[in-house]
């Protein structure tokens, strides 16, 4: 049984900001149905360039759901420059920590955000090469990314 913090449990059971944003300014999705990973993140900016609305949908375990929920909470009210600085460790810290084997579940949220910002800035959809050995088959997260996530 995973040792989830109360905060993780809370965000998993009552995730914040679930769903889709109408006419989003940025939209990012990582993964695909075929390889079994998926997180979609959308945001809308206000007049000052701050994120006024952010929503997510995820196909994932409790950590993935909680991390996504936490991330949306964290970015609302921030400028994109501020939001970009959020690391996986920040997400994990915000949740009071994640079990070691589950740290990678926070990676996807980070990447979906990156993809959404890229989409806002370029109008293009982000596609990403995955290198390294796939550790978490459910989300196509690689060991390199986990290493980075843990180092961060």
């Amino acid at each position: 049984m995973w040792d989830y913090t109360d905060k993780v449990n809370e965000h998993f059971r009552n995730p914040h900001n679930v769903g889709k944003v109408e006419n989003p300014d940025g939209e990012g999705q990582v993964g695909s149905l075929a390889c079994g990973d998926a997180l979609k993140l959308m945001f809308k900016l206000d007049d000052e360039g701050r994120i006024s609305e952010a929503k997510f949908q995820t196909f994932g375990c409790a950590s993935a759901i909680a991390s996504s929920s936490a991330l949306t909470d964290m970015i609302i009210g921030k400028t994109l420059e501020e939001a970009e600085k959020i690391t996986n460790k920040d997400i994990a810290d915000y949740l009071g920590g994640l079990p070691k084997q589950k740290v990678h579940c926070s990676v996807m949220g980070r990447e979906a955000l990156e993809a959404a910002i890229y989409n806002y800035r370029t109008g293009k959809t982000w596609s990403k090469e995955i290198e390294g050995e796939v550790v978490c088959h459910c989300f196509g997260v690689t060991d390199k990314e986990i290493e980075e996530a843990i180092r961060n």
Partner: protein
Amino acid sequence: MKTVYVDNNATTQIADEVREAMLPFLTDLWGNPSSMHTFGGQVKKHVEAAREKVAALIGAADPQEVTFTSCGSESNNLAIRGGAEAMDKPLHVITSKVEHAAVSGPCHYLEDRGFRLTKLDVDSQGDLDTGALVHEVKSGKSLTSIMWANNETGVIFPVSQIGELVHEFGGIFHTDAVQAVGKIPMNVSELPIDMLSLSGHKLHAPKGVGALYIRRGTKVKPLVLGGHQERGRRAGTENVPYIVGLGVACDLAGKKLSEENDRVKAMRDRLEQGILACCPGSRVNGDSMHRLPNTTNISFDFIEGEAILLMLDDRGICASTGSACASGSLEPSHVLRAMNVPGTAVHGSIRFSLSTYNTDEDIDAVLTELPKIVQRLRELSPFV
């Protein structure tokens, strides 16, 4: 909150009769059965009586064919590592892709030491590719280890047919029957089975006792080397209380076999039909013809198993994704992958496994709560 325990393939509750039978051996009769004095020696006959009961449940011709071990995993390791070591030319190990880790572990161990290892496929129903087996056994004397029933799907393999094929070419056949013993009738003395593993805690005895049936004449080298206990097949002072408990549990299981295949099966079927009816995008994994009476494994499209489990847990419902001992791993079930369960369904499967201790109210509880959970999680999913 009432606990609704529908995870009996992971472990079962200890039957009252089993606990009662064990208590004297935890209290006054704590002697060492190998002792020369009466106080210890008197205990031995209780160990032998238990051996007879285990033999009776599986239909062993002679109780001495039963060796007590510390768990199902040890039984499997003893059979496979010990069986391979005892063979003259044990070059080929044949197993399936859907075995428990306690079988695939020792098989890979042998592979690392130069044995040829073949892992047979299953089809989308979880049924074994017996055609491939025919081909493989021909290639020389083998040690073949194929489970009797799969822990995740409950699919039952044709052990009689497999054993015959293996024997035809001079091989040895071991079956991991940890999930089958006590759930379906069996009579090893009439089957082409050389070794059979079972585990106490899957049939209402405690965790930490198992047995390996070793047909008279089958050679096995011990895994735990040392004293002369278990006729030299397994060293270590005997776990008398649990062995006595396992005996009683086997007795009980024999008596309840018809209830298992009758009332438990009916509950399982109602649960399965109920879920399929009220959860769109759900499907049963595994051949419904050849299946344990207590197990159903159901996949839900677009949602993830752990999330379902935790929400069931909030409502006091205990179920499982795959095998409990794999729950430390993030890999999707190797069994469902071997069956080529498509898309997200492989990530979103839940196993419900019943026992004679379950009631109709348990089934009602699952059927009330599960659809709500599935709907809730689907709302989170980017795929719907």
